[in-house]
């Protein structure tokens, strides 16, 4: 019995994986994401220079200018207002963006799934409380809320996690709740209950595995949003603080030098766009692959 169940669930995921593999844009997105992860992990090895090492005589050099601090002797993407190597800063910025995207979504998922499952399974007061809180959070002007939290807690990457999580869980909770409401009425859940299984076991082993599809899609779709929010907050001076390089704070710094070094503002923006683009492609692909009801 146990064995057949397992092989069946494996084929479900295998099926989704086969569908995803056939979706070329999604595979392209996945490849870009893997490359970005490698770049983030290998940053110290592949960066031509230390991202916070300054060289004041060589400020705001154009791409291709000779450099004393870069291993290869050239500022491939130019230098910034302190003579730091822009390429190295863009490379290190990958770490910030990816970790914000992934960690914040991990927090959001844990809180959202817990809240949504409790609200959907138990209903009543619990449901009322969770869903009304979610309604209130949805009525907030999102960015204004983030900015407010950053003002309250002070600018740092950890506070960005908190700001994003405070609002973000509500969307996941709504999604999970609607799934659980439907699943808890299924006969197999009733059977599990009749066997005397505990609520925790029913929720964790029997209900949640069946809403993994929508959860995975929602998490993947949430990552680009989180990356954009971090970039925005850092751009406003409320996120990651210089000299730590983040794509958002680089664009903020570059604004002052639009005339003397126009390329400076372009590179980090392209980095953000490519990253978010890749996650969007993967998200679209996962949605198509994991939703069997979708007509092709």
């Amino acid at each position, binding site marked *: 019995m146990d064995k057949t169940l397992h092989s069946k669930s494996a084929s479900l995921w295998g099926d989704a994986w086969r569908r995803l593999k056939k979706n070329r844009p999604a595979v392209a997105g996945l490849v870009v994401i893997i490359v970005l992860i490698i770049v983030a992990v290998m940053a110290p090895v592949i960066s031509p220079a230390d991202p916070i090492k300054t060289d004041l005589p060589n400020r705001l050099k154009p791409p291709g200018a000779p450099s004393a601090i870069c291993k290869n002797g050239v500022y491939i993407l130019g230098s910034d207002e302190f003579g730091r190597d822009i390429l190295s800063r863009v490379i290190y910025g990958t770490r910030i963006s990816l970790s914000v995207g992934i960690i914040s979504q991990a927090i959001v998922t844990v809180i959202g799934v817990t809240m949504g499952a409790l609200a959907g399974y138990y209903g009543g007061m619990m449901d009322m409380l969770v869903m009304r809180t979610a309604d209130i959070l949805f009525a*907030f*002007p999102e960015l204004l809320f983030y900015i*407010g939290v950053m003002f309250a807690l002070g600018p740092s990457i950890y506070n960005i996690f908190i700001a994003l999580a405070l609002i973000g869980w509500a969307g996941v909770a709504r999604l999970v709740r609607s799934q659980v409401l439907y699943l808890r009425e299924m006969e197999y859940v009733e059977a599990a209950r009749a066997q005397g299984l505990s609520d925790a076991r029913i929720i964790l082993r029997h209900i949640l595995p069946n809403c993994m599809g929508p959860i995975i899609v929602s998490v993947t779709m949430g990552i680009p949003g989180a990356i954009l929010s971090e970039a925005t907050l850092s*751009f*406003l001076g409320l996120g990651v603080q210089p000299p730590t390089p983040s794509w958002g704070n680089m664009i903020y710094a570059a604004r002052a030098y639009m005339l003397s070094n126009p390329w400076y503002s372009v590179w980090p*923006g392209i980095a953000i766009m490519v990253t978010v683009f890749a996650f969007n492609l993967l998200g679209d692909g996962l949605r198509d692959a994991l939703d069997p009801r979708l007509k092709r």
Partner: protein
Amino acid sequence: MAGYIVRRLIMALPVLVGVSLITFILLNVVPGDPVLEMMGKHVDPLTLEKVREQLGLNDPLYVQFGRFLFNALRGDLGKSFKTGQPVTQMIMDTFPTTVKLALSSAFVAIVLGITVGIISAVKQYSFFDHAAMITALAGISAPIFWVAVVAQLVFGLQLKWLPISGYSSPKHMILPAVVLGIRFAASIARYTRSAFLEVIRQDFIRTARAKGLAERAVIFGHALKNAMIPVVTIIGMQISGLLTGSLLTETIFAIPGLGRLSIWALSNRDFPLVQGIVLFTAVVFVIGNLIVDISYAFLDPRVRLQ
């Protein structure tokens, strides 16, 4: 209809109270003394105490919050700590500018987005379709503030076609409106395309074609209206994004709207102003969503509001 509207507004009240409460809690967590900030560092403690008393800041928090709610119900959002002006007036002074920006970008977004979406759907899998959908996804992926900075760079500083900041002529609105509009055009185009594709596969479209209607009449007369229902939902959901986007666009292009005012209020710890703006924006959301729901009834006669 009137009953429906009233019921919806009453249902929104607890949400608005909740929004205000969370803002109130957040503001009281913010480190630093707003009154000290307002009066300057060298004020003597006695005056400070007097001002705090006058502003009602010595009352327990629940009294302060209750007073805020009670006054807000009568349209009084208190006075700004920083300027002494009534908050309601400061919001009303800046809101029309934001509405102008939001409407101009919504115009850009809707015209561009729906047009591209329809062409993409009608010519599915053509070169145009692929190019448009890749561009649209890129448009969604690019951060608004970066698009704004690059637009200033290219059209303002390099080509010198348009002014890059300020708000003195209609010409000043072009860049901000297009920058803000393009992003929403991108998502509207994506949704219009998929909604259209779904509609043109349905039987009534086949019937329309079968009875010999011109393709133009099929697309505009029959398909468009039916495809608009999901599109209207998306446009409605963008209202919040539009306000968020205008916050950034206004800051970057130095436009004196509500968005810039809200950042100013937060960085100056002007609590009454922040409270007022957040509540006001939440009310705008609620009304926006209501308008979206009402518009369904016009687009789809099967929808009955209750």
